[in-house]
């Protein structure tokens, strides 16, 4: 893991070099990628495999609330849920992280103390990213200072779509530096990048710039995470590891609501990137409602009975 991005350091020397590199990546055939994702979606995960997958999925959840209406009370409640997703079953593991706006970080930091649960904060003028770099850097530093150990930044899609790749690259590098020891997740907002070729290029761009994770979406734009887009990103982290020796994580976010969906993602992680990514350090789900469906299916599998939503806590 000490090998760094040096084999590719030349490609970020100029806008032209970066463009040549990104456009030289193998293309993605949309029909083929969609078919591959759909094919993996037909895997039938039952009994012991399902139980294992559900517990892993719970441990991978970044339990998220990103609303204008968020209050300290709401965030404290969510943190309690993160620690103990199923109060009726102590064998249920905690989630990976809480994900909130920067203003909620102090509250969450306090509420999560001693739990080992990570605290992620969105930053960089989330969700649009349309703010001066200085504001984005301040946003990031404030979140880290308040206790966030993970930063979910958004890239400048406007700059990316107009071909100013080096600008996007340099911005990510700057934010990464502002993060200090905090992990950086780079949100590509794939729903705005639209093409799979763009998703592959943006993935490589974010990894070259030092992102620790690449993340699909803010959850504020439709479509958010999809299986094929996550497939492209999993191929990217796999190939990036092969090329540079550095491993990067993947986080699909938004729109993943059911256990069935979550398991499809895990199958895809397993068969595309490999089981080295089947770990909360390397794969996360950005989700809120997913957690309760996982808990319901978990209980159903353990007891044989399917209880209603009222048997699980709202937050």
């Amino acid at each position, binding site marked *: 893991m000490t090998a760094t991005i040096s084999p590719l350091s030349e490609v970020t020397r100029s806008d032209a070099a970066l463009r040549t590199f990104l456009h030289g990546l*193998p*293309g*993605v*055939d949309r*029909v*083929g*990628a969609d*078919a*591959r994702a759909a094919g993996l979606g*037909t*895997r*039938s*995960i*039952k*009994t*012991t*495999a*399902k139980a*294992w*997958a559900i517990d892993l999925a719970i441990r991978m959840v970044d339990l998220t609330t990103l609303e204008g209406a968020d209050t300290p009370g709401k965030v404290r409640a969510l943190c309690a849920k993160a620690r103990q997703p199923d109060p009726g079953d102590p064998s249920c593991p905690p989630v990976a992280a809480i994900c909130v706006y920067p203003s909620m970080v102090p509250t969450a930091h306090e509420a999560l103390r001693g739990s080992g649960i990570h605290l992620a904060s969105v930053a960089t003028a989330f969700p649009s990213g349309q703010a001066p770099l200085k504001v984005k850097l301040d946003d990031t530093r404030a979140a880290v200072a308040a206790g966030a150990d993970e930063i979910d930044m958004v890239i400048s899609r406007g700059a990316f779509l107009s071909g100013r790749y080096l600008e996007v690259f340099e911005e990510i590098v700057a934010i990464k530096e502002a993060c200090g020891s905090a992990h950086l997740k780079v949100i590509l907002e794939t729903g705005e990048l639209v093409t799979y070729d763009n998703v592959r290029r943006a993935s490589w761009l974010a990894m070259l710039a030092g992102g620790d994770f690449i993340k699909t979406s803010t959850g504020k734009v439709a479509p958010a995470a999809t299986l094929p887009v996550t497939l492209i990103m999993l*191929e990217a982290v796999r190939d990036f590891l092969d090329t540079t020796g550095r491993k990067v994580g993947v986080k699909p976010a938004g729109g993943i609501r059911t256990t069935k969906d979550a398991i499809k993602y*895990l*199958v895809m992680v*397993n*068969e595309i990137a490999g*089981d080295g990514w*089947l770990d909360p350090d390397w794969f996360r789900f950005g989700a809120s409602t997913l957690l309760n469906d996982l808990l319901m299916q978990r209980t159903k599998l353990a007891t044989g009975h399917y209880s209603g939503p009222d048997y699980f806590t709202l937050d």
Partner: protein
Amino acid sequence: MSAFEYAPAPESRSIVKLQPSYGLFINGEFVDGAGSFKTISPASEEVLAEIAEASTADVDRAVKAARRAYTDVWGVMPGRERAKYLFRIARLIAERSRELAVLESLNNGKPIKESRDVDVPLAAAHFFYYAGWADKLPYAGFGADPRPLGVAGQVIPWNFPLLMLAWKIAPALAAGNTVVLKPAETTPLTALLFAEICQQAELPPGVVNIVTGAGETGAAVVNHPDVDKVAFTGSTEVGRIIARAVAGTNKKVTLELGGKAANIVFDDAAIDQAVEGIVTGIFFNQGHVCCAGSRLLVQESVADQLLESLKRRMATLRVGDPLDKNTDVGAINSAEQLSRIKALAEIGSAEGAERWSPACELPDRGFWFAPTIFTGVSQAHRIAREEIFGPVLSVLTFRTPGEAVEKANNTPYGLSAGVWSEKGSRILAIADQLRAGVVWANTFNKFDPASPFGGYKESGYGREGGRHGLEAYLAG
């Protein structure tokens, strides 16, 4: 061993009601045959049922029944009425799709996900498609008042038992012919379930007759003097025998034979999707596919990268119980086919090609062969020329588009080919030069009832599927 072990997810066999023995389906009824043979599951060698073997006399009875049905009922029935029966059969195939899929996987060894998602839905689609043609034949482009030929003798292979039956029977019936069909010796069961569906659809007796048996039964069907049309899908070797047998007679013939398709990957291809296409091309249905992409031609500049990706992908293929919903590669159909694959693979190694298979545990019983690739293959090697009809890929390289085309065409076969490139102009230019009946661009092994299928050179003649597929069953 992955951390994520998929638990067994077997499709239940209980939907299939296997009978201890099956008769011949002649004139709308199941009748005894002269002899019998056993049919097994190639995945376990378990005996599934006793099957009647049709003698020459049995075949004669079947042809007579087909002739009567043609003269009295089917040949004179208006197309719009025939269509109703075909639509009914199509719906019944769809309704009984799970039963058909399980039975197909049991008897053939193919993974349930393929029989469930490909074979059976496509079989139903063929009947739906040709049902639509039955009352529109004057508009098919084969004359203002095209007439059926009469009785069609049809012999089909074991690789897609139900689907090949549909390819044969649907256009024949739509055009007004009656049929005597011989399923492959090793895979008779779905054809016999189809016979039940014909009864359920109240198809007039004699319109469809199913005679089970081996080569001799097939020969009796082909050689019967009252058969007007012979349709065969199978090996080039048997195709030659049939062509000789019908030479000098008035019988019309279509032959769909072997292949050694080139799957050409250019350096500007979408590599991840090309890898999927290569896997689909050669490991779909254990490579028991006449149009399989059994020769990979990859541009030298991306060969190493592509092969590394291909090997990594092959390591995720799940080989095993055909009825497990997560199985990607099932059982080889018969001991005979397995020994042929093994023999050709041995020859590949002996000729100096480098053999590679992923680590995979094969079941103890049944007929199994691990997905295999040979690299360093040249045009002079037998594994680059002969059809292996198994999960064995021969990898060759090329330097220029011209060389790719030359190598692709340098084969006695010409059934299919694949081209992988992100450059549209290149795809069109290459496809234009390939002498193959089907050329897939950035995909492989895609089938549709509306699309004609058939070969160049030793891959046979005539077209099946689409409007073109009607021509073989009509006299203009």
